[in-house]
Structure formats: structure tokens, C-alpha cells
């Protein structure tokens, strides 16, 4: 039995020190205000505190900590992107994830399962090869495998030819991983709070305060808060908050739904994605199948659920895994995805001085949590766009230097 549990169990008080230390009051001024207490905002605060010595930080959230897309994603981590810029960025994320449990002193249950992006058409096979070639070039472990290899690696999958969309092959990415999404937010919060960062849930930003082209603070449901620098990390509301700051983002906001099954004994190790069938599935450590599909076909800021999402998802799921017909969906939910035209995020400096943005996370935000926080912290601390984030600057849309990642999106949009 691991030592930590023995120590806990033998402790007569049976109480650990609190992991999360909540502030009792909100101050009038901070060095940095971060809007959005999700994984990204908390990670930014954590790295500002640990790597740059900036601890006079307030992380504000209109609802509860980690309750946005941090709580609503399907916990998949991968670096098998399409563009060299994207691959380099997500590769650093994977490297940070691998040491994150130790860094944060919380088990994020980082679990490398292997990730299949199935191809059912020639076009999908071409995209798979493209990604594999770029990945290998940049030192990311990806390869194109044929249907036989898929069957060998994941024998429970139906790769027979007598289905509507037979599997021709796949992009196989062995480092593809799962992690406990909430724990990542908690870990960052814990580490940041321990260093004096304040997290204020239930504090909605209603306006951005500026002096000329410079931000000076935010107006909130709890009054005005002044700050030298402000970071916006509000996936799902990015364009609305940036509008408060006075600039527009090229973002369309679309719901993305997901669901989980009842827990069953382990049967599926890998993460399986099929863009053509609009499905992805993995089995969590608890035994639940965690599943999702394409984004909804229309823009919306609501996280309501729909029936047709589940119907479409399951029709295709049973093509890949016919034996799951008797398994049951336990719960469904939706996240809200800020989609950019090139399927890459928008990070860094903005037209407003000292106002930094972390947005455009579409359906790929969770897997970027550590690297985004790490590099955004660098950006905020130095006031300069870090090299790794340079391709993802907001200005790229004006100069048409886009980072086209549509081909690496896991499912249809």
C-alpha cells in the first residue's frame, strides 16, 4: 500500500490539510487578474506564481471553479496534429502532462492508451499519412496502420468489410492519453493558492476597464477590481468578453456534446476516433465509456443536450463496436466550443495593451492546458509573445498567416 494512504489512514484526525485555500475577501487591486477559473486560467496563474514570481493574482469566474469546458471535455490528450506549429505546441503540452502529477502533487491519472484516428475513405487515409509524416518529422510518435493492424491492436473493434463504412486504416498515435480532467484544474488551483493566488468563483466580469488603449481593471458583479494586467481565458464566451474589451475575435461559438455510459469492467484500452463516422470513444479509469461526436450544426451559447446527438452517435458507435448495444448511456452534457477559421487557438497579445487573450480553443482546449498556461504565463510576465505562441497570435487573421489544423480535428465540424 502506498505510503501516502498509510499515513492518511493512521492519522488519528484523519484529516489532510486543505488542498484548496479560498480567499475570504476580494481586494481592490491585483498585479494580474485572470478572467476564467478553468484549467487554462488556473494553469496560467500557477506558472505565473511558480515560474515568474508573480503571486498577487486574482482568478475570477462567473460560476464555479473548473466548471466550464474543463469539466465538459472527453479528457483526450494527443500531439498528432497537422501543422509543424501545431505539432510543436501540442508536443510540449504532452511533455508537461507527463510530469504533471509530480509537479502538482495530485494524481492526474495520466494514462497513455494509444490513439486511433480511423480512416474510412481514401481522403482520410491521405490526411492520416500527412499527419504521420509531419509528426514523425517533429519527433512525435505516429504512424499509418492498415485495417489488419487496427484489428491486431484493438481486437474488439469491428473492422470487417461488410459494414457501411469499412475501416481502411488509421493514424495510430501510441502516446495518445487520457487524464482526470478535473484533477488538473484542482492541481493547478492547489499549487497557485498555496502561493497566494486568489481564486474567486461566483464573480462575473461585466466590463473591462480601460484608459485609452490600456486595460486598468475589470468591473465585476462584486465591484471594480484594478489590475496591471488582465488575462482572458473564457472558452465558450471568448467573443463576448473580448467585446467588453473592445475588440473582435474571428470566432463562431458552437456546442459540442458528449456522454458517458454506465461503468463496466475494462474492455477498451485505446482511444478510438472516427472523423467519418463522427464518433470518439475511450474507457475511463472508472469503467465508463466516454463518448462524443461532431459539433452541433448551428451556433449557440447554450449547453443544452439533444436527443439526436445521441441517436447519431450510437448508430455509428455500434458499427465499430456492435457488442455495446446492451450498454447504457448514463449521462450526457455539452460544452461550448469557440471555433476559429483555421481550427487553431488564439493566444497572446491583443490590441488592448496589457490585455492578454487565451481563446479559440474549439474542441482542442483540454489537451493544451499545461502548455497554454505555461506559455501564457511567460507572455504575461514578459509582455512579449513567446516564440511557441507566435504562430497563434490574433494578428494572423489580418495577415492571413493561418495555422490550418482542420485536417487534424478529431471529428466533423
Amino acid at each position, binding site marked *: 500500500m*502506498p505510503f501516502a*494512504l*498509510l499515513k*492518511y*489512514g493512521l492519522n488519528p484526525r*484523519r484529516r*489532510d490539510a486543505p*488542498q*484548496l*485555500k479560498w480567499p475570504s475577501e476580494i481586494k481592490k487591486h491585483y498585479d494580474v487578474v485572470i478572467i476564467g477559473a478553468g484549467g487554462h486560467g488556473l494553469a496560467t496563474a500557477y506558472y505565473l506564481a511558480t515560474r515568474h514570481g508573480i503571486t498577487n493574482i486574482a482568478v475570477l469566474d462567473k460560476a*464555479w*471553479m*473548473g466548471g466550464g469546458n474543463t469539466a465538459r471535455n472527453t479528457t483526450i490528450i494527443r500531439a498528432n496534429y497537422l501543422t509543424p506549429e501545431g505539432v510543436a505546441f501540442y508536443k510540449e503540452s504532452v511533455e508537461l502532462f507527463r*510530469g504533471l*502529477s509530480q509537479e502538482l502533487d*495530485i*494524481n492526474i*491519472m495520466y*494514462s*497513455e492508451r494509444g490513439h486511433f484516428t480511423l480512416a474510412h*475513405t481514401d481522403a482520410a487515409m*491521405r490526411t492520416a*499519412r*500527412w499527419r504521420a*509524416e509531419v509528426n514523425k*518529422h517533429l519527433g512525435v510518435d505516429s504512424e499509418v496502420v492498415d485495417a489488419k493492424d487496427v484489428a491486431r491492436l484493438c481486437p474488439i473493434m469491428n473492422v470487417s468489410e461488410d459494414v*457501411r*463504412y469499412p475501416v481502411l486504416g488509421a493514424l495510430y498515435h501510441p502516446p495518445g492519453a487520457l487524464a*482526470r480532467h*478535473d484533477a488538473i484544474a*484542482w492541481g493547478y488551483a492547489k499549487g497557485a493558492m498555496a502561493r497566494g493566488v486568489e481564486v474567486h*468563483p461566483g464573480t462575473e466580469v461585466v466590463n473591462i476597464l480601460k484608459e485609452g488603449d490600456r486595460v486598468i481593471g475589470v468591473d465585476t458583479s462584486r465591484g471594480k477590481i484594478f489590475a496591471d494586467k488582465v488575462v482572458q481565458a473564457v472558452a465558450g464566451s471568448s467573443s463576448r468578453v473580448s467585446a467588453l474589451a473592445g475588440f473582435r475575435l474571428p470566432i463562431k461559438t458552437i456546442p459540442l456534446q458528449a456522454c458517458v*455510459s*454506465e*461503468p*463496466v*469492467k475494462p*474492455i477498451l484500452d485505446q482511444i478510438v476516433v472516427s472523423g467519418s463516422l463522427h464518433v470518439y470513444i475511450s474507457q475511463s*479509469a472508472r*469503467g465508463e465509456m466516454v463518448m462524443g461526436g461532431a459539433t452541433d450544426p448551428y451556433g449557440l451559447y447554450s449547453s*443544452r*443536450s439533444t436527443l439526436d446527438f445521441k441517436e447519431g452517435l*450510437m*448508430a455509428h*458507435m*455500434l*458499427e465499430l463496436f*456492435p*457488442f*455495446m*448495444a*446492451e*450498454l*447504457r*448511456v*448514463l*449521462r*450526457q452534457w455539452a460544452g461550448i466550443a469557440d471555433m476559429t477559421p483555421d481550427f487553431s487557438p488564439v493566444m497572446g497579445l491583443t490590441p488592448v495593451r496589457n490585455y492578454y487573450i487565451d481563446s479559440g480553443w474549439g474542441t482542442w482546449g483540454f489537451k493544451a492546458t499545461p502548455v497554454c498556461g505555461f506559455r501564457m504565463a511567460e507572455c504575461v510576465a514578459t509582455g512579449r509573445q513567446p516564440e511557441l505562441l507566435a504562430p497563434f497570435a490574433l494578428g494572423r487573421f489580418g495577415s*492571413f498567416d493561418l495555422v490550418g489544423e*482542420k485536417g487534424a480535428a478529431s471529428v466533423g465540424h
Partner: protein
Amino acid sequence: MTVENFRLEAKGWGFLLDRNKPLKFTFDGETYNGFDGDVIASALMASGRHVLSRSFKYHRPRGVLTMAGHDANSMVQVGAEPNVRGDRHGIAAGMQVISVNRIGKLDRDWLAVLGLFSRFLPVGFYYKTFFRPRGAWRFFERPIRALAGLGSLDPRAHHGYFDKQYLFCDVLVVGGGPAGLHAAIASASTGADTLLIDEWPVLGGSLLYGRISGSRAAAESKRSELVSQVERCPNLRILNNTTVSGLFADNWASALKENRLFKIRAKQTVLASGGYDQLLVFSKNDLPGIMFADAAQRLMRLYGVKPGSKAVIVTSNRFGYDVALDLLEAGVEVAAIVDMGNANEAGASKMEALGIRVIFNSTVVKAKGKARVEAVAVGPMLDRDKRGRAEWVGCDLVVMSVGYSPAINLACHTGAKVYYDPEIAMHRATDLPRGIAVTGSVGGIWSDASIGASSSDVGKSAAQMALGTNSTPVAPAQDDSARTITHHWPITESSAGEEFVDFDEDLRTCDIDDTVQAGYDDIQLVKRYSTAGLGPSQGRHANINTIRLVARATGRSVEEIGTTTFRPPLVPEKFGQLAGRGFEPTRLTAMHERHVELDASFTPVGLWLRPAYYGPKQRGNAAITAEVTAVRNGVGIIDVSTLGGLEIRGPDAAAFLDRVYTFNFLKQPVGRSRYALLTDESGVIIDDGVACRLHEQHFYVTATTGAVDQVYRLLGFWNQHWRMDVDIANVTAAYAGMNVAGPDSRAVLEKLESDIDFSAGAFPYLAVRIGRIAGISVKILRVGFVGELGYEIHCLSGFGAKLWDRLIDTGKHFGITPFGVEAQRVLRLEKGHIIIGQDTDGLTNPAEANMVWALSKTKPSYLGKRSVDMQIAKGVKRKLVGFTLADAASPCPKESHLAIQDGNIIGRVTSVVRSPTLSKVIGLAYLPTELALPSTRFSIRVDGGRMVEAEVVPTPFYDPENKRQEM
């Protein structure tokens, strides 16, 4: 096997049983007896088996709790079906039931040892450890994963038949208890087409087993009266054994019945779905033999099973006294009624008259027993948390009736808000969305006296709103008796510990306290850190007590804590039910049978199946080469029906196209086609086709097979914005299309009876003609995609096969050869034509693809013009170029292989083939603009990491003077 028999034999017990039909089934390999109508749990309990499962974390023995399928205690595996609720799943002859989540036998699960280590496995223990040193989790994960999960899946199992049915109604009433029956009768009597859905096999809800004013006979006669009224209602449909699993926007409901999913559109929905019993939390409250009052009543009345022989009832309401009468009637000794209050004097004096001891202002403090409850300690309640000296009372059955949680879930699925009403110690729904009403206990009505009238009012009002005769919903009724149902603090802790709050997740009161202590003090964080409410019963019996504990630990009120969100589904839905028969439409062209006869190998293109080539898979390459050669040297025919077709009609047709596509269309002559390129707002190429002007106000525009639906949507979107005088129709499926291509194509067409002059002068390249061939009305486009003289012929789909046959027959003389998509891809590449989506990616602009010629310089705008102009002005960084290999003996690269220079990626191959016509490798690739000049050499990395030298060459590779397509 000889077993004790706990069946209640007399009349009045076992309403659902058909005792003339005994059945045998097995549980963990042992044979059990039951009757038709029994569920697994009732049949097992009738034979004296009380332990049905092992719990999720500590593998504690668990027995019946709800007898309603609402909890995880009775979860079993039936054949290949995991996680079956044994307390709702009927038995069948020969059924094989096995218990789950155990090692060894159910009664001696080795993993029960985990319970002994529970102090070392605190809430969230897995967050605290198993991750040092780095990589350690890899080793711990597998055994921990293996402990999780309940049932198991059999990958060899094949799924059965599932289907779906649509239903429509004016008023949907959910729940067939007294409230639902009253509402449905009132709605139907008002004239509304009413659908009543109930999850039980027979109507009546609590009237099937409960009492009215202490009288079973009154409840029975009430039920008969309501059911006979229901049966007389002409416009009332009933779905029994059906559970509404979700309610979505605009009264769109899903309901499950066996292997069928109902999808229901109602104008109004009335929720009369009752409530969920709530747990009394005390030490070892999860022992088998401790169950809800409703469960005990259901066991007796519905299944004829005696739940125990000596009972202690703990209650905070009148239902506890009712169940005492039932137990006495069934011959169960009632050791005591423990009343958490002291208000029920009438009930108490009745009990005392029967010789039953009533202990006021007290509660059960703890229980003891191993696999079944043996005794409970009863002690006075001094204040919220403090209990007085307790006495042990022997029993093998504890019946809890300490309150309910109204089943407001469905209302919340579609947007209702939840608030905690401290007056009644229950959550209630408010801000109900339009078209949703609640009644019965969901609406806070608990008294038998007022339930009829209030539910009838709600039903009538819903009907009137559905029928449009009245638009004001009825004001919600009030019922003071709601205050007497639910105890506000049904939690007692003792030094013994093991007070379970959430049975699914094995969470105790100390776990919730520890969670809050650790800083996870928001109810949403509590749920996620402790996993409270995440199990199969989704917190039905755990939420409110969790909230109470969080309130206590944080010093806030229950109202302030709020609640987590109720999300669909209300009951778990099988993947098969959601998938149904899996309608995955396959689109076949009018000539599909012809292709099958010709032994075509098909490839999926969107929903379509298209011939990739003709012949078996193993001879694919030879077939493709032969087809290419036939087109180049004689004549070929390809089915192009899948090509998208859009009709644009109206006075503004040309002006509309002008605003959308990049070319000029205003002055396009009638009878001519023009290339049509489509870019999006960021200037990226998204589709191409040809626009044929058939009349001043009528264009026929083609779109690629994969993109036509998206293009149609886009055109419709802009037409909505611009409000131009045009009509847009997607006519893809209306027409069959075939392209007759090759030097002999004109000769083939000229041999057919036709009113069209096919001579080069009369019907030049890019002309469009309407006429008849072989008696069939056709539209013919002279096109050049494959780089030969060619005619694309469109006719109504119904004539497609006939026209194909005539062309094949007539073409025989010229050796006409059907060719597939693969040959077409080779032919077009030889001719240097790009395929949108293959040779373009998500960022390709017209300048990169060398298509600046297709952009109008003169017109003010087209979709994406601003972006395209800016990119051209800025200068593009990459260009699509043609290439061949410097050394003909080099291996042929594959599409998506990369161009590499100095260790950097500089480009990518998009199309490549060893050309049968040119006998060399040709391809298209993106290269940096400065390298995109003929004769430039560059390297492609092919399989195995080998570098291959390539050279940029001009395109087209074949017939650069375009003589062949324009002949």
C-alpha cells in the same frame, strides 16, 4: 435446492404475478423458482436470497432498496447484458443471471476485504498517491481499473433488434399514478389527444400498493375507478412499461420500452412522475434488509414477497404507518415504529391499539448484521446531530420512510430551475419552460384529498393550451401536507461510522466532510471530487443528503448550497435503443445495377457508392490502367450522377451567382458553361463546378459530390440575407449524369437518334445543349475534365439506366469502356486539373492553386473577394506545382509525402500517379513560391525515410495545347 419460501399466498398479494405460470431461472448457476410477472429480485427474495450484489468500492453486500429499478443495489448481469436492474427486469424461463463485481462467490466476495481498509482508502484516495515516482501510475492503473466497473461486456455478443417509433400528441402525461391518471382523464375529456406514459406494467402508481387515509381498500377502489375512466376515454392512448428518459426543447421527449425508442412531440407535457424515496443515513444503513417503504410495499403487493419476518419502521410521515399495516397484514411482526417526529397522534394511537410500539422523536442510530440486518439501535433525537441513549431492537427488516425527492428531473432537462424549499425540505422546479406543467408530488401536492382536483385542473389547462382554447396556465396548487413528508435532517452519525450517503459510490458522511475539508466546498466540486451522484442512480437517493452535509460542513444553508444539474437521460438508455436500426442511407445512382453487373469495385463518396474501377479488387491497378487507356485512345463512359446539381432560377439568377462565385456570370451567354470557383470568407477555396446558363433567368450549377449539401446551404444562407429574386433547388438526385469521353465520343453520340448537332462547329467546347437522345430529354455539357473530347449528359434519373444502356450498346462498335473514379483521377491529373479537397487543404487560396484566371477583376464582389485580394497583394508563400521524378527508376511517392529541404518541411505531395499515358510519375505538390518554378529540383521523403529527387514541371502534363478536349 431446498429453500425457505417467502411467498405471500393469499389473494391481494402479488398483483403482477401469474401463479399459474411457474418459471425456473438460474442465479450464479443455482436454479431458482419464480412466476411469470416476477422480477429477478422478487423471485430471489421469495427464495430467501437477500444479497443481490456487491458495492462499487468496498464490495459490501447489498440487497433490495427501491424495487423500482432506481438504484444500483440489484444490478446483475443477464447473459450479455450488463448492469441490469434486477428489481425491474422480469424473469424468463431458463434465464441465466449472474451477480457482478466480485471475486469468488457473491456471499463470500474476497474483495470485501477492501472494506477493512476503508480508512486507508479515503475519498479521492487515488488523487493522493500512485504517481510517484514518475510513471508509477502505469503500474497501478491496470489493477485499479479492473476493480472499477460493474458488469462486463462480451465482445462476441451480437446485438439484437432495436427500432424507433415517432408519436405525436396534444398532451403528454408522464406518470400513471393518481396525479397522472387524473391529469390524463381531464386532458382527454377536454378533447385533447392525450398520451399517458407509465413505467409500470399496470396503471395506478402508488395506488397499486399504498393506502388512502390508512385504507388499502380505498386506494384499490380509487385505482379501479380511475383505470375504468381511463379505459373509457376515447382520445387517450396509454403506453405501459415505458419510461420517459429525456425531455428536450419544444416538448420533444424520448421514451423507452424494451428494445424500442419512442420519439414524441407533444404540444404540452404534464409531469406527474412522483418522487424518489430518500435514504435515512445511519451506521450500516446499507445492509440488506434495509429498504424503502415503497420497496416493501411493492414486494408484497406487486410480487407477493414477504420482505422479512420482524420489522422496524423508521418514518417521518404518514406512509410509515401505512406500511406498518401492510406488514401486519402480511404476517410480518412489527417490532417498533420509530417516528422522527411526534405529530402523527392518530396513526400512533391506531398502532398502539394494535399493540405496536411507537417511539416518538427518535431515529435509527445504527444497525448491525453481516449479510443482513439483525438489529437496529433506536435513540432519541436531541438536536440536529446529537442522539440520546439508544436501545437495540432485533429485526431482519428495516423500512425507511423519511421523505422524498420529487422527480423534477425531466423539467430540468428542458430548462426549469431548481430551488430548495425549506418549508417542505425538498427541491422544487420553478421557471418551467413553456408547455410544461407539473402535478402530484412533482408539484408539491401530497394529500390524497387535493391530488385529484389539482391534477385534473392541470390536465384540463394543458389540454386547453394545446387546443388553443385558453392560453393561461392554471396557477399552481398549494398543499400544506407537503410539510409533513420529508425530514429535514435524516442523518445520524455515530462512533461506529459506515454511514452511507451514496450507495452507488460507497460514500459515507465522513467522505463528504473530508471533501469539504479538503477545500472542495462547492456542490459541483463535491460531486466531482467525491463522485457523489455520479453512479448509475445519478444521485437520486444521495443528492439531497450530500447537500445537507455540505451545508453543515460549510456553515451555509441548504438553499445556499444549490444543487448540481440534472442531465438527460433520466434512466440509462441502451446504445441499441438510441441507435435503432441504424439507418445509414446509402445513395445509389440510377445506373448502380449496371455497375454491379459489370463487377465494379465500389468506393464510398459521402453517402454515395461509386465504382472505383470495374473488376475485382486484386486486379485494381490493371483495371485502372486499361480504363485510362480506353479513354485516351477510344471512348469511355463514367457515371457522374453523384456530382451535385443546383438550379438557380429567377430574374436575379445571374446577379446572385455573380455575388457568390469568383467568375463573371452577368454576361454569360445562354447555352454556354463557365467554370465556377467558390471561396469562403477567408479566401479559401471550398468548391468548384460549372455554371450552365440554360436561359436568361436559369442556371444549372454543378458542385462536387462531397460539398453540394454544404454549398446548397451556403447559397440558401446568402439568399436569406440578400433577399434576391431567385429560387435555389438542390436537384442532385433528380438527374442521372454520364460523361462520354474520348476521341470517339462524338461518333458514339452521332450514331444515336438526336435533335442535337454534335459537330464541332455547332457544339463547341464549353457549350451546353438541351435536346433529346434516343428519345430521352437530355442536357449536354461539353466538358474537359479528363482532357479529351467529352460530353457530360444529364437526364432525369428514371431514364438513367436506359440512356446508359443505349450509350453502351451504341458505343460497342467503338469499344466503349466504362471507367471509374480511380481512372478519372489519373486522367484529370495527367491533364493537370486539381480536385478540391485533395489538392487544396483548409487554407488554399486561388493564387496558391494557380487559379487567379478564375477570379473576376471587374465585378465589385464575390464571397471571399476581400480576403483573396489581400492575399494576392501580399503575395502567397506557397504554390501548387506539377512535378515528375528526376530519376524514372525512383520509387513513386505517396500522396501526403513531404518535401524536405535542409531538414525542414517545405511542402507536400497532394496527388501523384505513375501515368499510364505518359509512362512516368507525375504529381502535384505544394512548394514555397520561390521554388515553384519549372526545372527546380526538390526532395520528397518517401516510405522508409528515403529521399527522392523531383523536378518542377509545367502542367498540364498531357496535351498542354488543349487540342484534344477542344476538337
